[in-house]
Every structure is written in structure tokens, then in C-alpha cells.
């Protein structure tokens, strides 16, 4: 058995696929390649695969990671080419790396950069937003919807476009098991802390996911 870390992207064509549906899709993709998965033991054997940070429905990405076990040795290039040949249009493996043990620990991923496009009205002063010592918004956690101060988990927000009522922001915020922040919470904070700011429809794209500044692949 050999384990691989895969980095992959998904574009507009497949961005409405849920995490569970993606798991099934990937499973079927591997079946089509003819490569052999490592199956779990037990009543209902399923392929062993872990997706690092499941993407929300509607979000595109250039930087998804998963770990998957194959029964057999494949070169990294073979993995990339074979899976890409079997993926439905819209998904693409960008890189693969064979790993031993915990040499790459995907649970360590702790920050992500997003580009968002947002319809809005009013004042979108990012400096004013970030000048706040705390930004308390209602946030969904495992134990329900709670107030949370998200300010410490916003590492940067940059305005890169603002025309025709559409704001384009690039933001670096926390992801992962310690603290997971979604761009929507940042928008919630803008609505709460900026006067006259009203958000509309938003498109989200994930550009990168790293451990500190370390890019795994």
C-alpha cells in the first residue's frame, strides 16, 4: 500500500457538487482508472481517502488536498495523468506526492486565501473594518450558532476591485480544525461593523491553503 497526497482544482462547471457527492465521484473516478484503492475493512468496505477541508457548495478552488491510499506503486506523474484522464470535466489533479507516514499532515492546514466577488451597496471600507479590535458575529459551530470574535482569524483583506457595485476582495483567513472561518462570516462582520454596508450575492474562489506560509504541494 502506498499513500499519496493529491492537490486538485475544481472550476465553475462542478462547483455545485457537495462534499459527499464528490467522495462518490472520486471513488468512481478511481474505479474507471483501473487503479486499485485500498479498501477499509468491515461490513461496508469503502475506499480509504481523506479530503483536507471540504469545500462548500458553490465555491471553486485551485488548492484542494486529499490523501488517498492505493494498493500498488504508481509514479507521481502516472497518478496525475491517469486520474485526470478519468475525471469529469471541471476537476483536475494539479500535483501528486507519494508520502510515508505523517510527512505531510493535512490536518495542519490552518489558513486559506480566497478571492470573493460581492454585490454590495454602501461603504466598503476595509481599513475601517480591520481597525476594530474585535469583530463579533454569529457563527455556526458544532454545538450550534454562537457569537464569536473572528478578528484574530482574519490575517489580511485586500480590495482588488470595486466597480459597478461589485467588490472584489482577496482575504487570508483561518481554516482547519482549530478555527474554521468562512468568507461569509467576514461579510457578516462588514454588514455589522460598517455603516450603510449591505451585501448581496457572492462568488467565492479558494486560491490557496497553507500551513502558516508553507505550501504542502
Amino acid at each position, binding site marked *: 500500500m502506498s499513500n499519496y497526497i493529491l492537490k486538485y482544482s475544481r472550476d465553475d462547471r462542478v462547483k455545485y457538487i*457537495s462534499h459527499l457527492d464528490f467522495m462518490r*465521484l472520486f*471513488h*468512481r473516478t478511481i*474505479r474507471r482508472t483501473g487503479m486499485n484503492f485500498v479498501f477499509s475493512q468491515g461490513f*461496508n468496505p469503502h475506499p480509504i481517502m481523506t479530503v483536507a477541508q471540504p469545500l462548500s457548495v458553490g465555491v471553486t478552488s485551485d488548492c484542494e488536498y486529499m490523501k488517498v491510499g492505493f494498493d500498488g506503486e504508481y509514479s507521481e506523474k502516472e497518478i496525475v495523468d491517469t486520474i485526470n484522464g478519468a475525471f469529469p470535466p471541471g476537476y483536475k489533479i494539479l500535483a501528486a506526492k507519494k508520502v510515508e507516514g505523517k510527512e505531510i499532515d493535512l490536518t495542519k492546514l490552518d489558513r486559506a486565501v480566497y478571492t470573493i466577488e460581492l454585490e454590495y451597496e454602501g461603504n466598503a471600507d476595509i481599513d475601517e473594518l480591520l481597525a476594530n479590535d474585535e469583530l463579533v458575529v454569529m457563527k455556526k459551530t458544532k454545538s450550534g450558532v454562537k457569537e464569536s470574535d473572528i478578528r484574530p482569524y482574519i490575517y489580511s483583506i485586500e480590495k482588488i476591485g470595486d466597480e459597478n457595485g461589485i467588490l472584489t476582495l482577496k482575504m487570508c483567513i483561518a481554516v482547519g480544525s482549530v478555527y474554521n472561518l468562512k468568507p461569509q462570516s467576514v461579510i457578516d462582520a462588514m454588514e455589522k461593523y460598517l455603516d450603510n454596508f449591505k451585501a448581496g*450575492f457572492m462568488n467565492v474562489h479558494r486560491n490557496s491553503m497553507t500551513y502558516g506560509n508553507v505550501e504542502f504541494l
Partner: protein
Amino acid sequence: MITTKDKILSAVMKPTRYTGGELNSVIKNPSDVDVRFGFCFADTYEIAMSHLGLKILYHTLNDRPDTYCERVFAPWTDMEEEMKKHGMKLFALETGDEVTHFDMMGFTLQYELCYSNVVNMLNLADIPIRSKDRDESYPIICGGGPCAYNAEPVADIFDFFMMGEGEDVIHEVVDEYVKWKKSGKKNKRDYLEAIAEIEGVYVPSFYDVEYNEDNTVKSVTPNNPHAKPTVRKRIMKEFDTAYAPETIIVPFGEVVHDRVMLEVMRGCLRGCRFCQAGYIYRPLRERKADRLLGIADNLLSCSGFDEISLSSLSTSDFSGLKDLTDGLLKITEEKKIGLSLPSLRIDNFSLELMEKVQKVRKTGITFAPEAGTQRLRDVINKNINEEDIIKSTDLLFRGGWTNVKLYFMIGLPTETMEDVRGIADLAQKVLDVYFAIPKEERAKNINITVSTSSFVPKPFTAFQWAKQDTRDMLIEKQDELKGAIKSKRIRYNWHDNKTSYLEGVFARGDRRLCDVLIKAVENGCKFDGWGEHFKFDTWMQTFDELGIDPDFYTARERSYEEVLPWEHIDIGVTKNFLMRENEKAKQAVTTPNCRQQCAGCGVKSFGTGVCYE
């Protein structure tokens, strides 16, 4: 870029129902083809994508360089609202293009309760509902599938229907369309006259229906020299070698039948008298095990599905079953693929097979005795007896199964309360079988589920003349059965009789129902097959509004002399045979299956299948 499409899709449940782009869906440049064909299924994505006919016709049409066949399904109500809000019309999944000016749209009519969705889809496409109101700029609207055999209730809507199996006839009507289009598409009538000559094609506007004073049909007469007095169904004579798709679309979301379906045979030799499928798909034709294994291997590799199921009306009657399952088990064991075997009779062979197939989990087993007493099972010619059920359940319980479902119909012709109580008795006997087995030889927690649906007489069956039980009678029978079931181990589920009633009206309906249907949709009816959307009261008000008594279609025993609205359609099975079967039913006399003895139903005239074994 923020698009309207994104706004719409972000606001609905299960957006992948509407995005297209699934693996193996066909991408073409629409400007490269002569014919843009919308294959329409008037229900949700999950149901539509489980339909075998769609898989076949979609790929066979797309194999033509001159045609682009796309899928068009009914948007769920949340999507419909969003579409209306943003001024979006009904669209095809592959290109996302509006279908309003496609060349052809073909609806498969799988059940009567989808008719309101057909109308609703045309509304959403901004296409006039009635054939006579559509000029050459609109698509030709055609239909097929089991309900097309009595298409009279939707006759005003469709330009034409295809009777029987569509693999060949669909190419013939598309060929004619290409000719007509190239000649300048002057007059829709020219096209319809050309295809009316094709066997299996029924152009309803070429027939005049006259009624008697009591509203029964007096006559159905062709009004166009190109229309034949009777339209005969088409079948694939060489079914073994007939077209089977090389590829299969892999849905993103979970659909009802999320697996490869392997069509092992068409038709059924059993002759259950209530079963429309049993008559209309005659004669039984099989594929050879070798070919099936090739198809299976191919579809599994190109899709990556981890489950395959055999598709047929009665798998146990498939003569190549052992070879096929031996071969399939090799594939499924090696690739860790699930094999499901529906419509299998329980005997030692099938039990051993099931043991091999599901090594660990023992899921539920379903029996369909259909009726509670032997007398009534003889009436309906359901050749399963109590001894079979007792023997099989004994085998099952000893093999570790504990979930047994028993399917019945209530409201069958000649049924008495004794027959209804017989259902409870039979379930109790099955339970007794379980308790008669020593504790150490059976698994724990027995669970028996009794389900009843309400019998709906269908055209082209031995019971096409029969009276359908009224809703009150059905409720009385359901109550009787509830009272007769004594054990807490036996659960009882029953089917809503309101939908069965409406199904009954449309199943044997005539053209007078078209106006009711269109009006009912205006009044808000759609998704009638979905409990949460079914508006029975609105339907009844609509009947009332238009002065049509729905009981006329259900509550009446028809005489053999009456002209039935579908009599100008010829399914190969003769009216005489159906009459004989109906008379035998009244005397509770059974008819042997086709392999035991030919009953002379008439389909031998097709020159193929079990009739020539």
C-alpha cells in the same frame, strides 16, 4: 463573474440536478446538427436519470451526426420559482439552452400522474400546449412509453406518439424530420403525413373521435388518407443483437437507481392479468449471457459504478441466468461491485446466489403474492402459491434473513372481504414459519411488512373492462385489513387511494380529459406523484368546473361491445385473447405461462421471441 445562473443555482436544493456536465453526457456543437432533440422526462432529475429508456434513446440519437439529443427534466418547485423570478425558460441540461425552438421534443410517458408535469413543462418553455396552436416555429412534440398506448387523455397536446419500442422508430421519424426541415419546413401537416405512414406512429389529429349520448366512444375514424385505421406497436425483433448503449451518464448527485442496469430481457411470459407491462411488452425476448457480460463489463468500466442490477420483469424466467450470474459474480467479486437481483423467485438456486452476492449484509426480501387467497391469485393468474411462500420464507429465515416485505393489491376484480383478511392470514403464516424454527437456527428480530396498493385497471389487460373500487370501498378494505392483523411484528403500509383514483381516471380516459388536464394545471396542479404537491381537491373541482364526471372512467364495468378509447391501437395481443382471459378470471381458472403452453394471445405474429423457442 457573477451570473444569473449562479444566483439561481445558489438558491435551490440539489443544484447539480440542473448543471449538466456529468461524465459521459454528450457535448456537441448545436450549429453542427440538423436536429436539436429534447428528451423530456416529466419528473425530477433523480427519477428521470433512473429510466432505462432514456439511456438507450439518448445515446442512439446522439450516435447520429445530424442530431443533438439533450435531456430536459421537470424542475422542482423551488427551481421553477427561481426560473420565473429571473425570466428563465425551460432549458436543456447539456447546453443550458432554452428549448422553446428546439426541433423536436420527445416525452416518455411512464405513468399517468406525470401528465400535469408535461403541461407544466410546456408552459415553462413558453410553448403552446395544444398541438393545433403550435406552428412550424415550435418543436414537434412527440411521446412514447407505456402510457402512450392509451394516449387519448393527452392527444390534443402531442403531435404524434410512437407505439412500442423506440430504438428503430425514433430514427425513422428523425430521418423524416431532416427531410422536411431541408425542404423548408413549410407545413407541419406535411411532416405528420409523412410519418403517419411509418409503422408504430400515431398522429392523433388524423383521427376523429365520435361519442355516443352516454359519453362512451362511438367510433374512431381516420380523417387523413395517410393515417392507418389501426396503429401497430413496434418491437425489436432481434433483441439479442439490438442496440445497447456503450456508455452511460454518471450523475453527480444520488439518483434513484444509482447503478448500471443490465437489460437481460424484454417482455414477460407469466401473463398476470392485471399487469399492463406483461401484455404490452410481449413477446418475451432474451439476450444471450455472453453479450450481457460484455455490456456489463463495458458499462462498469466507463462509469465506475460500484453496483449493477439486472433489469427484467421476471429474472427467474431468464434462461441464461446461471451463465450470466456466474460470469457477473466473477466481475463483481474481483472489482468489489454490488450485484442486485430484483424480480427473482426464491428457491435453492436463487438463495445460494443471494448468499454469494451479499456475503455480509442480509437486506430485506420482497415477495409479491398480490392477493391474499389462492382463489384470488388464480383470478389474477399470479402463479405463486402459499406453499411457495412458506417454503421460501423458511429457507430465508434459516439463512439469516429477518426482513420480509409482502406486496399485495386491494380492489382486484371479484375480491371479497375474505380475500382481504387472507392477506393478514398469509402474513401471520409467514410469521409462524419463523417461530417454528428453533431459536438457535434463526436470526433475531423478525420484521414483516405488508404493503397494499390499490388496483387500477389498465388498458390492454384482461381487466381493461373492470370496475375500479371506489375510494370508500378501498378505505373499508384497508380498515378490515388493519383490524385483521393481530401481531405487532407485522407492519401494515397502504397506498393513498386518491392518487390511485386519479391514475384510474387517466389510465382509461378519453380525449375529453385533455381540457381537464390543461385546466387543472392552470389551477395549480403539478407533481401529482409527489404527496406534498398532489392537490386532489383542485383536481375534483376542475372536473366539476368542466362538467366531466371522473367516476365515468372508473366506477363503470364496460361491456365487450363498447368501443374502448384505445381500440385503434394494436399491441399484437388480441382483444379476443383479453376477453378469454377476463372470462377465465371470473372462474378463477389459470393460464399456463408461455413456455408451458402457448395461450394464443396473438403476438406470435411478430415472428420472434418465446413463441418460437
